[in-house]
């Protein structure tokens, strides 16, 4: 499956849940971060259910310095 994550193309052997994707990318989901698939925010309690499929655009964000 091909997906765009934070603007870059990634290829995976199978479709997966958000939780599985975060595991694959070694991202600690307990820290202040959030995920959107195709411009829809995925609530944390949905991470185990929400599926990422071919062609999805995924945004993974965190808080940083700003005014």
């Amino acid at each position: 499956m091909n997906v765009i994550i934070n603007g870059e193309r990634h290829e995976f052997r199978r479709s997966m849940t958000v939780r599985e994707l975060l595991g694959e990318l070694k991202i600690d989901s307990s820290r202040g971060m959030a995920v959107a698939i195709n411009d829809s925010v995925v609530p944390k309690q949905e991470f185990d259910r929400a599926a990422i499929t071919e062609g999805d655009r995924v945004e993974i964000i965190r808080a940083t310095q700003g005014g």
Partner: protein
Amino acid sequence: MRNKNLILGSREFSSRLIVGTGKYRDYDQTRQAIEASGAEIITVALRRLNLDNPNDKGLLDYLGKTYTLLPNTAGCYTAKEAVLTCRLAREALDTTFVKLEVIGDQKTLFPDNEQLLDAARTLVKEGFTVLPYCIDDPVICKKLEDAGCAAVMPLAAPIGSGLGIRNPYNLMMILEQSRVPVIVDAGVGTASDASFAMELGCHGILMNTAIAGSGDPVKMAHAMKLAVEAGRLAFEAGRIPKKLYATASSPVEGLIGR
């Protein structure tokens, strides 16, 4: 509105200074400056996670104490982008507070009124506490207030310009009409600018560059804390009217040799 504290939505804050966390030399300086400012609310931006190093320490790991985080939508040019950013912020930071910015022009960083109002209406409906960065225009401020924003945050001068309070008369008009707090967001250059805005009756000030870009950010943060407090006290006390001619401070009776 002459409350002792700054009231935003259902929350109350004793500090009337809100500070940004951008442009500092490093996280250590950021932490020290924020502490010196006495601010309880700090702004943060939301950006894509670096997938090459996803778990490296970030700003929030370096801040010693707990602050109320005010995520911004800096860099958004459409209501759609800003609304998505706010929804992500709510999920990431577990807050409904947002500093709503929808930029209309890259050179001036002035807001796009139509997009801003559109985003504000959507976000208010979704339960956000919306604090919009807006132009110092009483008409747009009124519309934002009517849309249900928890405050209006007119700029005093372009973001990062340090030009100070360019149009105090517009701020006075906005203050006269507003039923929500008026927070000057952007334009402050030095402590006297902050005091001046507070003396006009503004309920708070949001600044970043004036502190982070100064020669000694920790010292300037302290100066801004004092300036905001001094300006607020002077406003509450009520200044004397301006007169063209002198009025003696010492008694005119009993003058020696007359």
